[in-house]
């Protein structure tokens, strides 16, 4: 039994025009997301995960960005074909996004209550008084104590965790069907991170919302996700259910990445396996597998031929000429 996915990203390419050429930040990314599910997008700096998120929601600096191809089909419509006026109706209402640093996402000279009211007035037909009441309800829902008083305060008076709760309240104001969260807990302390992740989980279940969680933290992925896409140098190199990715990775980069993470349950003074070198330049990427120059299991063809996605039609797909054997 298959239902049409809520989101289908197909061959998505986003490039940036630079003086010395075109930087292929996202270079042919495909995945699907069902309603109510959580997809983790993991990768290191420069892998293209944030550009992917912004490409989906159409928040790219259009002066430099080139929509170089592909489709973003949300609820049956290709968002890349929509005019900006129609995109404005999708953004905030159907798809919401939260960012890493809550302080820079909030308006410093407007009370947090008014910021929520603004979103509600923009996207719903609530009257001003009703919108103010709804804003207080939303603050209560994200766990802000004394929400009525807090609604009249400014973001700078609040802790990092509270600010991120406010940002979540704003994002959820219109009951979006998809939330994109870009490193939502990276700036937070670990005890606060645990609380914010818990909040996201509860709200997601309550509102049957789909979630794309972008993170570099594999622990956060394990806590939150159903499925995971691993990005390297602008491409998804492996995608599977979270259990398969963490326990049975096939693609060599995923495997090496998992091995290099310090784990709280490993003994002290154990040498961590490292990935030598650095990610490639995305203006002139390697012509074959983009991980090949750093890969310990490289074959000759890895340098020249792009590995196809193996496992098509299954839940575990990866792009590797010399994958680790199935265990």
């Amino acid at each position, binding site marked *: 039994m298959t239902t049409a996915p809520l989101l289908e990203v197909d061959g998505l390419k986003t490039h940036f025009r630079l003086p010395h050429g075109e930087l292929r930040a996202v270079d042919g990314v495909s995945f699907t997301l069902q309603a109510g599910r959580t997809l983790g997008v993991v990768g290191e700096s420069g892998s293209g995960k944030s550009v992917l998120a912004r490409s989906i929601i159409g928040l790219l600096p259009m002066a430099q960005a080139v929509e170089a191809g592909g489709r973003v089909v949300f609820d049956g419509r290709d968002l890349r074909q929509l005019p900006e006026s129609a995109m404005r109706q999708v953004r905030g209402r159907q798809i919401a996004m939260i960012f890493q640093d809550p302080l820079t996402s909030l308006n410093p000279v407007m009370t947090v209550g008014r910021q929520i009211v603004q979103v509600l007035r923009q996207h719903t037909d609530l009257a001003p008084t009703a919108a103010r009441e709804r804003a207080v309800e939303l603050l209560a829902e994200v766990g802000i104590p004394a929400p009525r008083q807090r609604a009249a305060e400014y973001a700078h008076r609040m802790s990092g965790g509270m600010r991120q709760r406010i940002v979540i309240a704003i994002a959820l104001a219109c009951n979006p069907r998809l939330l994109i969260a870009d490193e939502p807990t990276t700036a937070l*302390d670990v005890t606060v991170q645990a609380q914010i992740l818990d909040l996201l989980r509860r709200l997601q279940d309550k509102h049957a919302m789909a979630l794309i969680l972008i993170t570099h933290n594999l622990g*956060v992925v*394990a806590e939150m996700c159903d499925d995971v896409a691993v990005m390297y140098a602008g491409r998804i190199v492996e995608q599977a259910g979270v259990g398969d990715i963490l326990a049975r990775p096939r693609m060599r980069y995923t495997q090496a990445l998992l091995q*290099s993470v310090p784990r*709280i349950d490993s003994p*002290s003074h154990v040498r961590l396996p490292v990935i030598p070198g650095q990610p490639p330049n995305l203006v002139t990427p390697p012509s074959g597998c983009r991980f090949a120059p750093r890969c310990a299991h490289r074959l000759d063809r890895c340098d020249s031929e792009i590995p196809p996605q193996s496992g098509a039609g299954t839940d575990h797909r990866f792009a590797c000429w010399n994958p680790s054997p199935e265990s």
Partner: protein
Amino acid sequence: MAGSGTAHLQRDNALLSAQNLVKTYKAKGGRRVQALSDVSLDIVRGETLGVVGESGSGKSTLARAILALPRPDSGTVRFDGAAVFDAAGARLRGLRQQMQMVFQDPLSSLNPAHRILDIVAMPLLVAGSGTAAERRATVMETLRSVGLDGEVVGHRRPYELSGGQCQRVSIARALVLRPALLVCDEPVSALDVSVQAQVLNLLEDAKAAFSLTMLFISHDLSVVKGISDRVIVMYLGKICEIAPTDALYATPRHPYTATLLASVPSLTPKRRSAQPQMPRGETPSPLDVPSGCRFRTRCPAATERCAREEPQIRPIDGSPGHFVACHHPG
């Protein structure tokens, strides 16, 4: 308050011993923030002592206070028997050569206008050691020891290197005077996972090659576990718990340590399983610290006594080297 007292000090084999460090900063309206409140610790020769804590715990202030950068308001630090804060001028410079620091953000801690060779040579120049040729040889050798080729990167500037390479340069600069103590403040927090592993391995190698003693500060409990022999847990300017690494992670006795450990996401998938109990609240403002034990406002085990009386650091029976500042240890 979570943690005063000196019961945990080792007395005999410490390379560095800090006692009763207090550091306050002025805040608006004439108020004072106590960033470090009566903290004592010692670092045993040859060990790596880890310090973990969240924002506002005072861990970075502690690192700086030990090096007198700046001096704390009160307290003493003895390095190899010598009182650091009594020293001034040439003698303080001499002591500081023995204690070097690596900072979190490699790019902002390196002068962008200087070449890598000059950055690494600067401590030698300040110390007035050797001829130009000798200094250059030491710089090249030190760069080699951190995995960089001075011939290749020496004439570049920091912005031409990757974050991981910059952190190697920072480490080389810290090692070039051949210090006895290396203080690392969040040295891998700004790095990607794969690069982080390279730098952590490098620190272990450098420690062995140069017979270093290390103070390693981080908010990342997994990183601290990997590199430390003993670990100190800090909260709001106080010490909660000190123990050998394995004991601390296997049997945390302070409720805050237990909360921290339970908050770290593990690599076991659990999206669709029952969720454990969440930690309560956030760290209170350091302008307005709770009476008694500073953790009591978030502590599941807090009683009326915790509000009234500050727990002293005391040893735990049957767990050597394990100390906790709690009225109701777990």
